[in-house]
């Protein structure tokens, strides 16, 4: 067992011989955090949009529900915030924090119930004492009754049995007849609470983004240690001692983990103290996400080290996931700015989960529970990468 630590220590000793690279891995993310941070600051983020942010989750799969969604999305007073990876309770918390003015949950069976003229309610979280709520309530009632009214009219037309007029056509026609609804609420001043730092600090996104991206860059050297060990036949030699194979693998994993975790710690402290990104709002949650992300990325490094045949391959095998995972995972452009499809594709990469974890803490202001699912996903990826690494190692050594 203790040999795991011996091997990890040896790896770190080798890595420390390349001190310049380690500094590079600290300086680059800081430089890029500023670059991206100012780029997004320049976009102005949400500032140009004065509509009220309203969360939206649909548990229903029906074309009537899609119509409701489209009407809400086109609203002039509310702006829908959708994120398939946030739960109803996450939204509830965002409302409580004032990050959202309200949140709408469409229950399962909503569309069918409307079509059958049954009474069904949308669930809405809101602080009903605010003026924003009055505005949103009116808009919601308008939209919901437009849908409802259109359904009724269409079914009346259908009952009249007009030849060649299908229900959906009648519905669309009726709905568009409401395009100029009798009630239209004009924007009053937006009371959605703006918080200090947090949401408006563009660095709250780029700081974790660059941190995750450059932790993958660190694999470039870490994976090389493993490749060199195999190429120089020191791995073979290790196997002539009575050191167990699994201890060798875990030792390497531990070394990379410590490297990345150190990198995280330094960058988180830098983010907290200099960039004013509030990682330490929930120190336990930040620790958990950093731990799981380091575990996951170091397992990826282990896998790269075992797959790569040459040092050059170790470099490209590290750079490719760095760009792909960082790009798709939302380390550069927040996934909220992209569509639903991109959000789902993005969440196939571990980086997106790491981003969710950190952003739930320092950008969205959510509670500790909000990092549990991202952390679990990261650990899941860690197990996957580690399993693949062990499997590949056994397959390549078995002769």
């Amino acid at each position, binding site marked *: 067992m203790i*040999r795991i630590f*011996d091997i990890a220590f*040896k790896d770190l*000793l*080798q890595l420390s*011989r*390349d001190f310049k690279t380690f500094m590079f891995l600290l300086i680059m993310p800081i430089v890029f955090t500023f670059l991206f941070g100012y780029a997004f600051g320049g976009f102005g983020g949400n500032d140009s949009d004065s509509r009220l942010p309203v969360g939206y989750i649909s548990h229903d799969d029906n074309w009537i529900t899609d119509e409701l969604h489209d009407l809400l999305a086109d609203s002039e007073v509310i702006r829908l915030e959708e994120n398939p990876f946030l739960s109803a309770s996450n939204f509830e918390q965002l409302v409580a924090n004032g990050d959202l003015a309200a949140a709408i949950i469409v229950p399962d069976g909503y569309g069918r119930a409307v079509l059958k003229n049954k009474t069904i309610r949308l669930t809405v979280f809101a602080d009903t004492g605010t003026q924003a709520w009055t505005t949103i309530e009116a808009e919601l009632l308008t939209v919901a009754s437009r849908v409802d009214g259109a359904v009724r009219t269409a079914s009346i037309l259908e009952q009249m049995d007009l030849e060649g007029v299908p229900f959906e056509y009648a519905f669309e026609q009726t709905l568009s007849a409401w395009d100029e609804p009798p009630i239209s609420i004009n924007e009053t001043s937006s009371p959605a609470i703006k918080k200090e730092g947090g949401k408006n600090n563009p660095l709250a996104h780029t700081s974790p983004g660059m941190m995750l991206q450059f932790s993958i860059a660190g694999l470039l050297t870490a994976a090389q240690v493993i490749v*060199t*060990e195999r190429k*120089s*036949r*020191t791995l*073979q*030699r*290790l*196997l*002539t*001692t*009575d*050191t167990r194979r699994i201890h060798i693998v875990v030792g390497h994993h531990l070394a990379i983990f410590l490297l990345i975790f150190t990198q995280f710690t330094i960058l988180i402290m830098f983010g907290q103290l200099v960039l004013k990104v509030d990682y330490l709002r929930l120190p336990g949650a930040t620790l958990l996400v950093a731990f799981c992300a380091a575990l996951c990325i170091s397992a990826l490094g282990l896998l790269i080290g075992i797959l790569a045949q040459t040092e050059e391959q170790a470099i490209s095998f590290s750079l490719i996931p760095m760009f792909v995972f960082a790009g798709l995972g939302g380390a550069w452009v927040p996934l909220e700015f992209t569509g639903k499809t991109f959000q789902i594709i993005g969440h196939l990469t571990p980086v997106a989960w790491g981003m969710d974890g950190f952003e739930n803490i320092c950008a969205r202001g959510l509670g500790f529970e909000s990092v549990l699912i991202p952390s679990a996903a990261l650990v899941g990826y860690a197990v996957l990468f580690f399993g693949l690494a062990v499997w590949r190692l056994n397959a390549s050594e078995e*002769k």
Partner: protein
Amino acid sequence: MSDVPAIEVLDLQKSFGENHAVQGVSFDVKQGEIFSLLGPNGAGKTTTISMLSCLLRPNNGDARVMGHSIRSDSTGVKSVLGVVPQDIALYEDLTARENLSFWGKMYGLRGSKLKLRVDEVLDVIGLRDRANERVGKYSGGMKRRVNIGVALLHKPKVIYMDEPTVGIDPQSRRNILDSVVKLKDEGMTVLYTTHYMEEAQELSDHIGIMDHGKLIACGTGEELVKLVGQQTRIDLTLNGDGSNVMQMWQAIDGVSRVSAEDGLVSVLVADSNLVLPHLFEAAAQLSIRITSVDIREPNLEAVFLHLTGRALRD
């Protein structure tokens, strides 16, 4: 205990696809002796060593190292073993001391005992004063010495050395050969591979000659040499016509054959010390000058030639 062979090899076989690298090799190595596997490139020496150190699984056959089977008790085998691999297997970005210290831990040494052994081994390999330099900056010979040193740290009962003297200068080579003999004096059993027949002849108690994956002969140096007979060959070059002198030499007692090829005259004799003066005497009588003499005692080179029809080194 000491009558149990240190290494007992029974019909080991290993193929890489169509390449039958080792084809049924059997031999015993006694405790405390130096046993050499002598053979040209590709003979299957490293493959045999790899099987004996549990890195490769044999297709057939088994071996016991200090009584532990390589098939069923690899942990037992590894616990009595030190291996010096043919390729230098060290961490080049660590210093010699750091390398030895790491490998010592991998062999289960800790604390003050580890420190003591690292220092002792640094003395043995003569690198104490340069112990804190990175191995990557060492010369080939120095790396070889560290490569050997690693396997000595835990004082194994059995040590395998796979061509430890390849590609180094004569002085380092001398050092290494001397230290191998020292290991034997300390009671270790050494399995040594080489394609230099002089090394095998000088070091070994027993020698196995390998070719094309087979052990074609096995015994002490003397026993092997007897296979080609006891005759010494004397090669001479002459200035002038040698045909008369060759007839005179043929008549000398103790000369069994005289032949000439490309201006080189070869005389096969039982004992060169007795015959050589007579050769010079006869040449002087005919006023023929002998310009060079080369005495070739029977050696493993000749044995290999005799057994395979090929020279050991092409």
